């Protein structure tokens, strides 16, 4: 979920979206170039590091008042209890339902608007100030207003998650459309393609990798939006569980939904990345 930190600014969306795959490429190359023996040594170091950190946490965590800090074994016990009561699953399903619906809306609306803004100067002129302003605003700031409008139910949560995930998707899609190489448009022109054909056969596929990057960044923001929204509404979901156990000073139980969120973040980002490689395989090896 480190991508959240590099969510593109409206001003330099191009550079962020363009630079990201390169850094990924570089790290992949480095791994491939390392000799096999070094590779397995790296794996050993990684495993040792995991054991070391978790072990240290277990030992040090036991020294601290359980009110302030917990430790792995206590968290594991709390997790089995929360799974047994079904509490965790209910929270997870509730969160996921919001996340999936809101992310779907954000993906559809963000992609459609991004394509229009990227392709048509007029649409861009009419909307760029609004997009920039909204993107610059930390949108969690409007959560109280959203709750005022929609109450504490699912609608408010869905709205918040949608609006948070929308902008990285929209901005990256726009950048993708603007960065279609001029030479590829030339190919369409040279073969006498009409406007619709240029859009569907050149611009859309060319912008696809950017759109996928937008979706990946959007997933990260959607998860943040979901948790924050659940903090505020505090009725259902993983965020609500965190608040509930925080209020009860049950720190071990509080860590359980946090871990689930971490796994969720990793899993979803990975899934989108796999989808990226599957949909745009040519980008992985192209300069």
């Amino acid at each position, binding site marked *: 979920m480190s991508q959240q930190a590099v969510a593109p600014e409206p001003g330099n969306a191009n550079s962020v979206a363009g630079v990201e795959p390169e850094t990924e490429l570089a790290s992949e190359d480095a791994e491939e170039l390392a000799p096999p023996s070094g590779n397995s040594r790296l794996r050993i170091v990684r495993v040792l590091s995991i054991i070391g950190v978790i072990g240290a946490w277990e030992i040090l965590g036991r020294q601290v008042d359980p009110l302030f800090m917990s430790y792995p074994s206590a968290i594991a016990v709390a997790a089995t209890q929360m799974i047994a009561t079904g509490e965790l699953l209910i929270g997870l399903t509730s969160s996921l339902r919001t996340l999936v619906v809101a992310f779907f809306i954000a993906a559809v609306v963000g992609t459609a608007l991004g394509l229009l803004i990227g392709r048509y100067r007029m649409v861009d002129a009419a909307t760029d100030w609004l997009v920039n302003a909204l993107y610059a605003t930390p949108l969690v700031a409007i959560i109280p207003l959203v709750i005022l409008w929609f109450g504490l139910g699912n609608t408010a949560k869905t709205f918040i998650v949608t609006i948070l995930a929308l902008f990285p998707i929209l901005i990256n899609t726009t950048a993708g459309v603007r960065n279609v190489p001029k030479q590829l448009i*030339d*190919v369409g022109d*040279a*073969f*006498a393609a009409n406007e619709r*054909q240029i859009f569907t*056969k050149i611009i859309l596929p060319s912008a696809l990798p950017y759109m996928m990057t937008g979706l990946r960044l959007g997933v990260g923001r959607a998860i943040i939006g979901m948790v924050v929204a659940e903090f505020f509404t505090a009725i259902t979901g993983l965020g609500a569980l965190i608040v509930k156990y925080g209020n009860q000073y049950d720190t071990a139980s509080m860590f359980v939904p946090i871990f689930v969120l971490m796994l969720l973040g990793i899993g979803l980002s990975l899934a989108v990345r796999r989808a990226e490689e599957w949909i745009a395989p*040519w980008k992985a*090896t*192209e300069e």
Partner: protein
Amino acid sequence: MVSTNVKLAVENVSKTFRVRGGQYSDDHLLPVLRRVSFDVYEGEIVSLIGESGCGKTTLLRIVQGLVRRDAGQIRVDGKPVAGTGRDRGFVFQQANLLPWRSARANVEFGLELQGVPRRKRGERAQALLELVGLGPAGEQFPHQLSGGMQQRVNLARALAIDPAILLMDEPFSALDAQTREVLQLELLRVQAETGKTILFVTHDLDEAIYLSNRIVVMGARPGRIKRIIPIPFGYPRKDLPELRGEPEFQEIRRNMWELIRNAPPIAA
């Protein structure tokens, strides 16, 4: 092979670019082509050659319709053309293959735009891949192909729409010397098999002599025709190294070099 049918007629084509001035200069007009006229006959290979800035690539793009001309007329098979059209096939300097399409799908591109049914365009693409020596590579993606192979796909893509004339914009200039010679040979073979009329832009004197029936030598500022040189060698041609050894080749080469180099001083 060359008939007396005029396949492509370029008539009095002129073009001026408006160059945007910077902070210290006003906009000014840059004439790139002045009243350029020549014909290309059916089945002929004609090269455009000249120093950089002589407008040869601009002229080719005007013929394709990628750049609008200010004045003059372009005719293909006697019919005036406006804008781009599939009666002309363009082979780009950089292959410009669509990276998300396989070699075959790239070759099919023009046919797809025309609405040719999938089966038919697949067959045609395969036939063309075989013609350019890439029969088994149809499923490869551009990033898996070498520069030379990409240019073969580039050529097959242009041939797929069966254009009346093939326009080639320095297609071999980015390749290494060896690959370039192989592809020059291949182009002559493909031309002999298809009988296509070709207008070929290059800055490589040997390439121009080796490939062409005639060479249009252009001068710069503004771009204009200096002379049209007929090449006396017949087809099929000898290998380039062998041809290069002939005194006649050397003579043409020397004359052309003089012609290109003796450009009048740049007008301020």
